């Protein structure tokens, strides 16, 4: 996959994702600003103010200069012209099913994919990360309103993503693999991945984990680059 420049984080707090966030900010053209999408959150108007304050605090605390953050809570009628000039798009966490289904319903999912495949930098946190995988059924318990869509944007070579990982959910992941027949990348809260074309770099304080179709677990170590081998159909060391 060419031109992909994608960050996904495991869903921890500001301190947990500090290394990933700094890496992200260093890569973007800050003059173009960041577009923040908080709509995975189940909040009211006051809640969205709080979300906006949060993202600004998160990014401005680690940015040397001023970084303009725009927040959208209504994605209807958005066009390519509206988003193409942003330096990056940041998709926040919350309910993964709500997020994906809203992105699809509004047509924004297509715009987002176009942004990504045109080299635009995208950061997905928690729910924002999970939608980048093949299927969001890794968190099927979040489907509290009978949402119909579960196919994600499929940007990780046919892998699904799960966040907030710890080894207590290994069985859950293996059950998912047996049901959906998709491999899984599992991110603990203190880590994330940077995907550039077909190369993956783990950035954070803990390793990430890769579950293959047999349910075998491979550790993806911090600061090590991996790549997706098309022939072997798996993530390998570079």
């Amino acid at each position, binding site marked *: 996959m060419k031109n992909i420049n994608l960050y996904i984080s495991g869903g921890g707090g500001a301190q947990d994702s500090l290394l990933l966030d700094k890496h992200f900010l260093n890569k973007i053209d800050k003059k173009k600003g960041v577009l923040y999408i908080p709509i995975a959150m189940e909040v*009211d108007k*006051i809640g969205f*103010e*709080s979300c*906006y*304050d949060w993202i600004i*605090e998160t990014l401005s605390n680690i940015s040397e200069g*001023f970084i*303009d953050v725009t927040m959208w809570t*209504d994605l209807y009628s958005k066009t390519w012209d509206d988003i193409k000039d942003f330096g990056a798009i940041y998709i926040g966490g919350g309910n993964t099913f709500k997020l994906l289904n809203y992105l699809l319903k509004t047509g924004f999912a297509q715009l987002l994919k176009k942004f990504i495949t045109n080299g635009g930098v995208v950061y997905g946190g928690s729910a924002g990360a999970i939608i980048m995988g093949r299927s969001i059924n890794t968190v099927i318990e979040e489907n509290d309103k009978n949402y119909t869509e579960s196919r994600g944007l499929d940007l990780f070579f046919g892998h699904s993503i799960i966040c907030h990982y710890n080894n207590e959910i290994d069985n859950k992941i293996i059950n998912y693999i047996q049901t959906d027949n998709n491999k899984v990348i599992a991110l603990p809260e203190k880590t994330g991945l940077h995907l550039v074309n077909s190369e993956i770099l783990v950035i954070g304080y803990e390793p990430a984990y890769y579950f293959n179709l047999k349910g075998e677990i491979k550790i993806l170590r911090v600061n090590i680059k991996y790549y997706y081998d098309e022939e072997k159909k798996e993530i390998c060391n570079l």
Partner: protein
Amino acid sequence: MKFSLENNFKKQHKNLDNYNDSLLEFIKKEGLSAENYDNDTERIMDEKFKLLFDKRNDYEEGFVKLENPNYFKNFFKEKKYNIIKPQSIIKKNSTTLFTSAGVQILDDYIFDEKEITKDKMYVAQPVIRTQFIDSIKDGVSTSFINISTEKMNPTTEDHFSSIKDWLNILDSLGINRNNLDIFIKKGEPNWGGKVFKNNIFMFFYKGLEIGDAIYAYDIPQSTRESTSFSDIGFGLERLRWSLSHKNYFDYNEDNGASLKTLDYCKTLALLSGSGVRPSNKSHGYRFRQFSKRLQQEFPGRIDSTKKIINHYYNFWTKWTSLDNGQEDSLQLIEKENERNFNRLLLDVLSESYSDVGIDINMSTVQLLESLKGTSVKEEHLNKILTEIYEKH
């Protein structure tokens, strides 16, 4: 009556039984009609707005009443509401950086679990909602006066009695209840990690949402039983706009300023007047952000923006006391505007010249003088300045 109740919902809470019974009784008694809010509501109200809002009658008497902060205050005082002084828009250690709703006068009760008062309260609260910074249009602004009544642990009778008070004052302004579209919905907000439930009355007038009445309950507390509140609020500017064809932003001089320009100036006046200082972080970030947006929208027009800012500073002081005097507030805004205009100009120049890394923290006049010592040709500079002004 067009709405329906969920049976299992009714079984859950005794106070909710009371709420639903009181709701039925209230709607019947007041001769109202209400519908469930659903996926089509916004679209239907949008269509109604396009059809009817421009045809609204001017009700000058109501408009004049709204210009006077004492009108609402006296009405609610007579109804035995405690008149609460508006809070500063700067919040510290709260769920939001700025006060974004009148209901936040209840923060001490909800979050700090302060001893609950039995009083019902009225406040005309200046608020900031930065989430609308990119959606500015008539009826949508980043700062406004949220006129609201609040009560902790209300009975359902208390809540509906307050709604009745509001219906009466809206009548007196010329917004008759028969012209209101009322929608009912439920929510489950999350305020700073506190998840609770609410029942909402939404009030639309000729397709424009003008306010809402919220009965919130099951608000978790750590030192006592869960609590509840009644929060009824309307936007002053939307009410005023509903009563007259005068423009929403209430600024009548024709100086080429767009609605965004007016909004940014209004919010900057409130920020600066409240003591916020521009910076790259925290509260000051918003000051800088609004100023930068203003320079993108209406670059460099010092005299025009000064007039607009002064106009809005006077507006705010009608409704609240500001910590920072008018002259100081204006100077701070001007300084920040010039700084950001300088940034805008240097960013354009840096595309053609490599020696324009000048400090932007000076007046624009000084910056232009400094540029004479660089490779920037005066003719080219004038062309760029003209382009910047004409683009906006």
